[in-house]
């Protein structure tokens, strides 16, 4: 556990984002969920606030903050719309690898528009063969005429239909031991042969678009290659491992806070046998559990984020935070549903959405089983209290 305190600026950031969310997101979140539409137009506004490029240095048009600030933004957005939360968190996986592995030219070319809200970012790694089977990717990249030709199909890609600038991984050969060599490319919307395919109909995290990205003889120039040839696995894993999962964790902290707030509101307002149900111990036990899960998830999530801000290894801490937050957001929303009785299944209340969003968060960025494999490997190889 890495202890830290929010800075004054981070507290102000939370207040500012909350104000924006209360005005622009909270009133429409249920509608986005019901109609399953992503409010792309809000990216421009969130860009102006600095959320889109929250962790990007100012020289590339960002807000110059870090992972803790990013988690604050995602928690606040997801308190009302986890769907928009995952759209934003996936957007971040566009500029992040470019910032980390891109050349100065690539950074200057792509990142400012991703920060301002002019463009939406995406990361396309997962394939029908599986998301976690990284080296089993079938998408290919061939060197041709001084550039690259990409072919294949990516699936379960968040922002598939709205991303303007995507980082895409493809197999570009084999190393001397015969293992597949993956490389990462920056591909822009409108490139011939690069298209969004099937759009998924999801249980939760609606209000974000998830679907296929199809690459048919997509010709990209040599300078579309991100990092070196063969860096693809590293780039993809790094973005998903430390940014994607940390984002999912923060999104579920937002859902958990929603559960706490709705539990307090409902149990104080609902009168049964002449008094609010919050006076009943059976209800109090549930409220106490939901609150405790929220606080624990929050501590783990922000602690892992602050490790990253301090430049320390955090993949295991992020995996634990993601595992805990997603599972307990699911548990807490089910408990809240029980607490609310019949009202719990009425869609006028957000609790059903919380539960669906929490469930959909579990496989996003790696399932709980994958998280446990990471945590176990880390623990068994050298647990130090």
């Amino acid at each position: 556990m890495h202890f830290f305190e929010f800075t004054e600026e981070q507290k102000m950031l939370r207040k500012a984002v909350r104000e924006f969310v209360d005005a622009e997101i909270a009133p429409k979140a249920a509608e986005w969920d019901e109609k399953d539409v992503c409010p792309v137009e809000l990216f421009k506004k969130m860009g102006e606030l600095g959320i889109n490029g929250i962790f990007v240095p100012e020289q590339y048009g960002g807000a110059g903050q870090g992972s803790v600030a990013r988690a604050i933004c995602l928690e606040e957005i997801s308190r009302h719309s986890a769907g928009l939360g995952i759209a934003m968190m996936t957007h971040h996986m566009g500029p992040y690898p470019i910032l980390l592995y891109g050349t100065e030219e690539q950074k200057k070319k792509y990142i400012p528009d991703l920060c301002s809200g002019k463009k939406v970012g995406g990361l396309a790694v997962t394939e029908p063969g599986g998301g976690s089977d990284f080296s089993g990717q079938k998408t290919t990249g061939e060197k041709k005429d001084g550039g690259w030709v990409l072919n294949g199909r990516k699936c379960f890609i968040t922002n598939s239909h709205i991303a303007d600038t995507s980082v895409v991984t493809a197999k570009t050969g084999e190393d001397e031991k015969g293992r597949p060599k993956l490389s990462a490319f920056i591909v822009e919307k409108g490139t011939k042969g690069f298209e969004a395919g099937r759009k998924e109909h999801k249980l939760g995290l609606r209000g974000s678009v998830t679907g296929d990205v199809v690459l048919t003889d997509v010709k990209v120039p040599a300078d579309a290659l991100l990092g070196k040839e063969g860096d693809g696995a590293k780039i993809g894993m790094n973005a998903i491992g430390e940014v994607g999962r940390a984002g999912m964790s923060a999104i579920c902290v937002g859902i958990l806070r929603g559960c706490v707030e709705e539990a307090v509101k409902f149990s104080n307002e609902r009168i049964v046998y002449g008094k609010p149900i919050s006076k009943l111990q059976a209800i109090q036990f549930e409220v106490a559990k939901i609150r405790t899960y929220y606080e624990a998830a929050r501590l783990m999530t922000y602690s892992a984020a602050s490790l990253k801000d301090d430049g320390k290894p955090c993949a295991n801490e992020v995996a634990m935070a993601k595992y805990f937050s997603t599972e307990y957001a699911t548990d807490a929303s089910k408990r809240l549903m029980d607490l609310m009785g019949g009202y719990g299944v009425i869609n006028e209340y957000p609790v059903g959405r919380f539960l669906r969003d929490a469930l959909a968060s579990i496989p996003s960025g790696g399932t709980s089983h994958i998280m446990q494999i990471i945590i176990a490997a880390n623990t068994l190889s050298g647990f130090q209290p």
Partner: protein
Amino acid sequence: MPYNIAVCVKPVPDPKHYDRVTIDPVKKTITRAGIPTLINPPDKSAIEAALQLRERCGGSVVVISMAPPDGAEILREVLAMGADEAFLLSDRALGGADTLATSYTLLHGLKKIEAAKGFRFDIVLCGNETADGATAQVSSQLGEWLEYPHLWNVSALESKGTDGEGKETFLLRTKMENGYMEWTAQTPFVLGIARDMTKPRFTSVMGIMKAKNKPLTVWNRADLDTAEDTYLGLPGSPTQPGVIFSPDLKRSGELLTGTPEEIVGRITAILRASGVVTGG
């Protein structure tokens, strides 16, 4: 032409937590301990108006507040919205002020800023009323103290171009019960800005970072050296709240027993006695 603009702001308890607000039965003041504060909503509209004026004409936006020490947090937020400099007038001696003592204190704060800067404020804006006190008196009182023309409930502030001497004429609109009045004015003036006059901008992360390095000065009673004690704080407040109490909203039920006929008869009698039902 550039304007020196002052905006008076007040931290108020967040309306979302009004259920936790209590009134001290002895001091008759609002107990705010533990309740988060925010910028009084009409003040935000005034800040936005000031920022728009500065963006159009140049000049500076200075914010001033009379508040407890934690009011600095609110002022930092106003700086993050885009104001240039902030002043907090904070002292126990200023506490418990009514609107007159508040406007007097603000006047001497503004005077001290003017003396330090070597200019006079051209435009002084206030939120029309506060979310907690809601008297809507301070802007007019401040106008009187400053001997500037003043208007309240201002819902529009537009430029009508400049006169022969290059001085800008403003078209102002004030809300009335059944419509509005139009006014033309030239600076200096004091305005009470209505909450819906502008749509206040959201605070950006970049604004928050810039606010860190903007000047925020705290002055206490002694710093307001031009102010006289007799007009400050609770002792300097001519208005004092009378009795404050929560009305008794208790309801009592009565269980009626007997045959249906007897119960109906009894209900009818009760309703007649209470005046709800009259006649046969």
